[in-house]
């Protein structure tokens, strides 16, 4: 049975059903991938509403884009790459630099446990204070696991610049979290 509804965490979503835009398959894919996508995109774009717009566009175009998905790859990784490209395209269009997002702490990193909340918000707040050029690189490296080469190609910078930005971002985050501003 190819169109089976699959509980969360049990791969794979039926790719054939996704290609047809089947609502149940779309729901499974959304439930499985949207939380991590929204985390990455909210930090990259600095605004939750923009992250939701990207996820909206991503899933609206997903069934047709599936025609070019090669099954030997990881579906989740493929989806994340497209989402990141959409986000980069948005960043290029708006051309904002170094803005501190007000919304960044909302909707991302929420957790119920006591101390964890303080830690989480601190890391998220620290990320929000980074200039966009550093924030994007650290998100792609730490959350998405991209190589410096991949980051460089997508952002149109050199591999060395990607590596330096990653290290500068970590340095700044460390100082912010240690209170050494």
């Amino acid at each position: 049975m190819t169109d089976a509804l699959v509980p969360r965490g049990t791969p794979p979503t039926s790719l054939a059903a996704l290609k047809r835009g089947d609502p149940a398959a779309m729901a499974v894919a959304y439930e499985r991938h949207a939380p991590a996508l929204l985390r990455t995109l909210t930090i990259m774009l600095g605004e939750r509403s923009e992250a939701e717009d990207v996820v909206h566009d991503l899933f609206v175009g997903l069934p047709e884009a599936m025609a070019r998905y090669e099954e030997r790859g990881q579906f989740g990784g493929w989806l994340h790459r497209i989402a990141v490209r959409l986000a980069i395209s948005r960043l290029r269009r708006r051309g904002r630099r170094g803005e501190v997002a007000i919304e960044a702490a909302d909707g991302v990193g929420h957790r119920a446990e006591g101390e964890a909340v303080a830690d989480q918000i601190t890391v998220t707040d620290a990320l929000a204070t980074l200039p966009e050029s550093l924030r994007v690189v650290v998100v792609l490296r730490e959350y998405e696991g991209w190589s410096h080469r991949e980051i460089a190609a997508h952002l149109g910078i050199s591999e060395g610049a990607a590596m330096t930005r990653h290290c500068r971002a970590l340095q700044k985050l460390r100082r912010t979290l240690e209170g050494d501003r």
Partner: protein
Amino acid sequence: MLMHPGELALTRYAAGSAAESLRRRVAGHLADCDRCRATVQSTRDVRAALKATAEASAPAALFERIMASRASGARALLPVEAPEALQLEVRTLRVGNGPTISRPVLWAVLGGAAAFGAIQVGGNYLESSAVRAITHADRTPPRRPAPLTLDTSIPAAGPLDARRMRPLNLQYGSISFAGGKTQSTVAGPRVQLRRDGGNGQWMAITSWPAGTRNSVPDTIWLNPETLEPARWHSSYRTNGVTTEISRQVAGNQLRVRRSTQLPAGVPMTLARAESLTKANGATDTSYTLPTDHATVALSIAHTTALMMAAPLAVGWRGRFTILDVWRRRISERPSTITITGSRRVVTPAGVFDCWEAVKRSEGWERRQWYRKSDGIFVGEALADINSPMFYRTILIAEE
């Protein structure tokens, strides 16, 4: 005296991106230096804290918005291809494993394949000035979109002139374009305008190519004078389940009838049938929703009809409300079209003098072109055409 490595060197070491010589030097130093060891550990803690950040919640409302957009016929072309720098690397590696092919020959083959997919056109549908802007996109300073203005709208029976309408049969294609090349082409919607022989109403028909949406065409019957929708009908099929939706405007009421038919004679578990029914709504329902919109745009064909009947000129600004009906709710997406100038647009269907317009709708911004002679939709670019990667819908045939 102990020589400490610089902070950047320590960060590189902690991030795992130090070259071998630096890695050995720092490792040797760390064995004897508590201070630098603490810096490295602190950087590793930051990385661990980043990885431990919880995922965001994914709201059900967002999923409903996605499905409502798809149900209304919205589609988005996604940047599936990696940037050229990465593609070149992959292709070169593949060539290395097989027969030796020189890079120019390889690119000629790939370029030929791309051109074939692009309906025998290399993708430069715009004038050369626009192509130059794309090629030099990285040197173009980023621009902030102009502020949104919503000061005028198209009154129901005002400047629209239904006498400008004529029968149309237009075929569009969707093209993704990056790095000065067409990346992919897919067939887009077909738009037809014609008179209903029975009641003389205009019919605005949008049909999608097979494979992108299993549907019969969306058909909207328009009031012959005001071009408001009188009734409309759509139908789609997923997994053998056919859903038909018909809506009728009566005063300020929208009557909706939705019927879903599960496939007969196909073995299906109860859970599967229930989930499909849940996803598609009840099997046969009728309901009424309030609406008081004088001017709504419900499909590409309907928008085309409205623009044909509108007195377009530079500075003209129209406001449409796009109505999505999904699970017994109407969501409204305000949308504006502003004519900003003129442009000559080259398409596979011909070369046209066009009005250039900016269309904005809920986070989307599109640059569009409408033919000056009769207002028909010639094409649009999603995103800024000065960005390195963008998508276009463009007229490819007119009958």
